[in-house]
């Protein structure tokens, strides 16, 4: 018998099966097509704002995405590098051939992990407890836990204009019955929609009239464990172009023909990835919209036209694409399409990602209502870890909103639910100064070590790094700058306000305009890795803001500690407002903090609830 069966080989499924196996579980990954493992059916990139930080978090927890992206990209950039440290995030243009190939290789090299090609159409359920899966061929496979990471394959429908074809991306087979079965077992199913733009043949594009967007001339990597494995000069470029009045006119004239505006689609599409017709209708006064051309792979000639996703019929898409500068003669190799699929209402999922109705069933990725490879990977790794912890009969690992973007993501999903595919944004995180790209390992490796999802060596490296940081900060705190005439001149020359005499380097570093590099260059010598320098500088320079954020976190943690017993009967809690009572009954929050984030549950209701808990459970 398997410990864990993972259904689906997308980004959630890869992380879930890999981490569960790495933690010692006997794991089976079932997928409809082995060739599509780690597939990127939409944009050819990994990371992006906030998402790049999730990739770092997955890596810190022992996951694969960062390591695979590091050896599979065509270009890498640090977004927001000129902004504050909290909002910096990596994005790589990943090669759509290399990435899945490297991912499959990594999975095949994972001990305890088997891969099987089959379509799962039902679950073995006894007394609301999962005992395994049943394939389309009727084969029953037993396991202690099941993780569903079905992506867009649950009753997937491809929409191009008024055409509606059952199937997953690339015209793959879809799962026809699984979502119906889930409904029978008591889960609420919702219908979501997402879209993807056209692919254009490389030699039909006139790049000479477009604005080139190069990769950074600085080395970057996602993973904390591996060295740099690319050459800066080998990076491929992307290109920026704009829509024009002619494009807009074509879209306006054909609006009725689009699946969305013509009324052929029923799913709810995401606001942050609107179709181009949506943009033209909603922002009618905008004269142009930005589009990007991105290479999909060096092994074939498709270029991805980011920003142009649409559900228009093929002939209109031809006109639209040809109206763009540099694409007058473009050959469309793949038309844009919208895809509709079934997902479960995430309010039925616990913070551990286990299902509230079906014991030992976990879900991750698009099935939980999210969008994006990184969001999927983040949930996948947590589902994998928690499935194993469940088997070990240990407490689940639940990352808090102050621990990780992954924590924010899952908490949002299971507390607030979602009606559109959920995408991570920096603005969703209230403690983003703590949730930085640079410190994902410092935030999460301790947890990873505790549950055993990283190796001893990885943990040791983390401890060494931490020690180096502390040592350096200690050095800065205990050494002073004597303000000699010579030193004064250095400040005057650099146009920096003269400091008070005999300040510590630590206090100096806090002053505006003074960097660690400036101090190290002029006043002392301290050999250390760039990674350490960055960490030290951020921790010292932003200490005031970080402390302020920690104060807010403390308030939250106090409430997180107050657990709500699972057996609470909200009908017995007197004086709750009706809306609050309904929401609490539906969501069944695990802590007072989670309860307080539910819309419709007011501070008064929280007071009433606290008093009830104290009375009934002698809850502190």
């Amino acid at each position: 018998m398997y410990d864990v069966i993972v259904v689906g080989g997308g980004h959630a499924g890869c992380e879930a099966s890999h981490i569960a196996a790495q933690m010692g579980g006997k794991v089976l990954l079932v997928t409809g097509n082995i060739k599509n493992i780690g597939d990127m059916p939409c944009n050819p990139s990994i990371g992006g704002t906030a998402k790049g930080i999730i990739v770092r978090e997955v890596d810190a927890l022992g996951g694969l995405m960062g390591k695979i992206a590091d050896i599979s990209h065509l270009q890498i950039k640090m977004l927001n590098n000129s902004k504050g440290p909290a909002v910096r995030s990596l994005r790589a243009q990943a090669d759509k051939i290399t990435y899945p190939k490297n991912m499959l290789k990594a999975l095949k090299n994972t001990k305890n992990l088997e891969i099987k090609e089959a379509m799962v159409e039902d679950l073995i359920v006894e007394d609301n407890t999962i005992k395994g899966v049943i394939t389309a061929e009727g084969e029953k496979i037993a396991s202690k836990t099941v993780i569903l990471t079905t992506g867009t394959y649950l009753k997937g429908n491809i929409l191009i204009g008024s055409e509606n074809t059952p199937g997953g991306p690339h015209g793959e087979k879809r799962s026809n019955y699984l979502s119906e079965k889930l409904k029978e077992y008591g889960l609420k199913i919702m219908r979501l929609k997402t879209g993807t733009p056209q692919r254009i043949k490389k030699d039909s594009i006139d790049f000479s009239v477009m604005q080139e967007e190069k990769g950074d001339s600085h080395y970057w990597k996602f993973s904390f464990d591996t060295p740099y494995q690319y050459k800066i000069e080998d990076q491929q470029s992307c290109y920026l172009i704009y829509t024009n009045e002619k494009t807009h006119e074509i879209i306006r004239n054909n609006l009725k023909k689009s699946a969305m505006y013509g009324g052929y689609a029923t799913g709810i599409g995401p606001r942050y990835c609107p179709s181009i017709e949506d943009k033209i209708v909603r922002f009618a006064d905008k004269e142009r919209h930005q589009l990007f051309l991105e290479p999909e792979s060096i092994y074939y000639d498709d270029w991805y036209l980011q920003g142009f996703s649409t559900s228009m019929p093929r002939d209109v898409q031809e006109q639209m694409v040809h109206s763009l500068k540099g694409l007058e003669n473009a050959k469309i190799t793949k038309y844009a399409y919208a895809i509709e699929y079934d997902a479960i209402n995430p309010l039925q999922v616990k913070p551990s990602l286990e299902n509230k109705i079906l014991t030992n069933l976990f879900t991750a990725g698009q099935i939980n209502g999210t969008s994006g490879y990184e969001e999927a990977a983040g949930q996948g790794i947590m589902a994998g870890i928690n499935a194993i912890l469940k088997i070990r009969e240990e407490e689940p690992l639940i990352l808090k909103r102050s621990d990780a973007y992954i924590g924010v993501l899952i908490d949002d999903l299971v507390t607030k639910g979602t009606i559109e595919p959920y995408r991570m944004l920096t603005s969703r995180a209230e403690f983003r100064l703590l949730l930085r790209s640079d410190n994902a390992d410092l935030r999460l490796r301790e947890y990873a070590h505790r549950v055993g999802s990283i190796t001893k060596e990885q943990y040791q490296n983390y401890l060494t790094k931490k020690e180096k940081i502390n040592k350096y900060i200690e050095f800065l705190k205990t050494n002073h700058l004597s303000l000699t005439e010579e030193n004064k001149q250095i400040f005057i020359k650099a146009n920096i306000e003269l400091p008070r005499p005999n300040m510590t380097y630590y206090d100096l570093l806090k002053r505006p305009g003074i960097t660690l590099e400036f101090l190290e260059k002029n006043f002392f010598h301290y050999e250390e890795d760039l990674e350490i320098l960055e960490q030290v500088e951020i921790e010292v320079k932003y200490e005031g803001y970080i402390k302020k954020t920690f104060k807010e976190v403390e308030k939250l943690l106090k409430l997180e500690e107050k657990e709500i017993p699972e057996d609470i009967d909200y009908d017995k809690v007197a004086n709750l407002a009706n809306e609050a009572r309904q929401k609490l009954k539906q969501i069944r929050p695990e802590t007072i903090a989670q309860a307080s984030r539910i819309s419709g549950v007011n501070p008064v209701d929280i007071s009433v609830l606290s008093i009830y808990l104290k009375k009934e459970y002698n809850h502190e």
Partner: protein
Amino acid sequence: MTDTICAIATGMSVGAISIIRLSGPDAITVVNDLFIEKDLTKVRTHTIHYGHLYDNDILLDEVLVMIMLAPKTYTKENIVEINCHGGINTTTKILETLLKKNVRLATPGEYTKRAFLNGRISLLEAESVNDLINATNDASRIMALNNIGGKLTKQIRDIREKMGKVLANIEVNIDYPEYEDELQVTHDLMHQYLTKFSTDLSLLVDNAKNGKLINNGINVAIIGKPNVGKSSILNFLLDEDKAIVTDIPGTTRDIVEGSITLNGVRINFIDTAGIRETTDTVEQIGVLKSKEKAEKADLVIYVVNNNEELTEEEIKLLDNLKDKEIIILVNKNDLPTKIDVEKIKKYDIVYGNTKNFDGLENLKKAIIEKFELEKIVNNDMSYLSNIRQIDLINKAKEAIDTALKSEKDGMEVDIIEIDLKLAWNLLGELIGDAYTDELVDNIFSNFCLGK
């Protein structure tokens, strides 16, 4: 429950003494910071200490401070009670000073709630706490929404909306850095925005302090010709002999103040020297002051004599005060009517006499009606909600000033934004229309982005 709370424990009517109570771990250190005579952190529990409270260099009041250490207190936390002089100004000043420290205003019923949660009071008692929390919170929410004047709410909402737009813009710059067509919030732009928000909030802080009836009371000037009975009216209203009353015209030269409380709102009466042309220099100052006071008053009670005809001068002064709230008291209605009421019928008129005080109660009623004092829910509550508002506005202003400092220090825009977001949240709390995903919704309704 690790934060420290404070509130005025006595009612807000004018009494000889007010008590401000603090509960929580920092209660003693916070008060100690203001107290100069001795170190209150070193004193024994359940002891009383005489001394003075200072806000930096400014003397707040001469006080008695009672120190009670946890756990033998009402809330089982450290409790400090400050006995200060009564009167809204002094008490409010001390409370405001405390709120600037690491202390927040207690919510209604919070002391009792803490007493319960800390195991100090029984379940039976707790049932009533439950009710109390429900009742008072609803009331305070309604008040938070209604009691700030519609105009003020609108002002706050406007400022907040502008902040929201800037925030959404900054977030868009962060989440979609490659979208160069969107406006980039630069340092210069941030400086402009913040300076404007700081000015806007300063105005609100001033308004909140000066304009609010509940906080400051209503200033009433009693004006009229000499010997028309102004001082007697004041005496009646104040129920004490504070003003000097004689039959000699022009006796009252100094402006005498006294206060009463009507429906929880403080009414400050200003007696004035008679208004008439005079050659007496001492009295001239009195007349000038009268006009000046009338200008500063929220309400003028204009006293005329039923037994005399109105003079040109009286009509002229009334016309001059036309932008004031005015109640005309026709005094001496026990004597034959010689006054031409036609000339003043456009004003609210109350008839009475100071001889046997007939009809003077109606004067109070007229004031209550004029300012709709009956609509103010309850004096303590209104007052609390007001202090809460001032507290929030002050904190919002502080946050903006901190942001300005960060800007000056050359911090990145997304770091400066931390305090701008704080101010935006505080204003949301103030007008009560914040919701969790507001910012995200804001981003997608105002910007055009995505694949």
